[in-house]
């Protein structure tokens, strides 16, 4: 299994496992692809975690505000109707667990990796970009008529294995 397939399989299994264990939700069939970083505008919630080590990059989870509220409601057994600090925290922790478990799988192949603290962005008409590679492994998880997107981009780190993880994703508002 090459690294791309390993990441794809790991993202899928990790997400299914986190949803099943922490949210009590069994997600259905997924759609996976490898995509170039697109300039499309985002609306909703995007959570990033930086990965660093012999390989470096970013993992992200993104979804609509309604789906973010649903994540929070299922995870915390509470009623979330609007995106607030609690919802953003729940999405951040979801990202931490999903990408954290992907990191654990990858470490068996590429050696020790570090993770940053998650950063969550909520807004409308914003664009995200990773400063590194532009190729993303993307897995779409349909849930209740919407889609949760888990994306990972990773590349060998030319700066060596001792780089500390930091926020490698960027978000900025687009002109309206």
């Amino acid at each position: 299994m090459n690294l791309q397939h390993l990441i794809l399989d790991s993202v899928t299994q990790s997400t299914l496992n986190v949803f099943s264990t922490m949210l009590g939700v069994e997600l259905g069939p997924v759609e996976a692809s490898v995509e170039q970083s697109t300039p499309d505008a985002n609306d909703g919630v995007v959570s990033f975690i930086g990965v660093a080590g012999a390989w470096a990059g970013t993992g992200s989870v993104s979804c609509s505000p309604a789906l973010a509220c649903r994540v929070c409601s299922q995870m915390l057994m509470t009623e979330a109707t609007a995106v607030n600090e609690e919802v953003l925290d729940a999405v951040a922790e979801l990202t931490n667990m999903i990408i954290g478990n992907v990191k654990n799988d990858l470490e068996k192949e590429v050696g020790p990796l570090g993770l940053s603290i998650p950063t969550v962005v909520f807004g409308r008409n914003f664009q995200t970009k990773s400063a590194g590679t532009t190729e993303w492994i993307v897995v779409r998880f349909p849930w209740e008529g919407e889609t949760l997107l888990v994306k990972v981009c990773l590349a060998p780190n030319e700066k060596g294995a001792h780089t500390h993880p930091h926020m490698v994703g960027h978000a900025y508002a687009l002109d309206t």
Partner: protein
Amino acid sequence: MESDILVVDDSAAIRKILQRVLRQTGMAIQKIHEAGDGQEALTLLGTQQVDLVLSDINMPKMDGLQLLAAVKASAQLRHIPVIMITTEGGETKVGEALRLGAAGYVRKPFTADQIKEKVARFIEPAEQL
């Protein structure tokens, strides 16, 4: 005897989940304290009687390994068992935690049964009171 537990995690979501899970374990728990990082946890341990600590590893300011090292280096605190709850699965950080004296670890994502199993080693069941 009812026990006090300290939950340390920078995620308020995880602290809330652990509060709920711990309350549902049927253990003799008097109070569940919360801290958002190791530094806050150490401050709290200086003023509160705590019988068990559940701590994340990756946290800002002072991480779980630094907190564990500080607890085990303190004559007043080293008797308190510390269980790590973390996404870390590699030998490096979990192994270091165990070498530093962690009483065990639970991987995130976790089930209520996994938490109960670990906590039951240190906290009495409520029905025995």
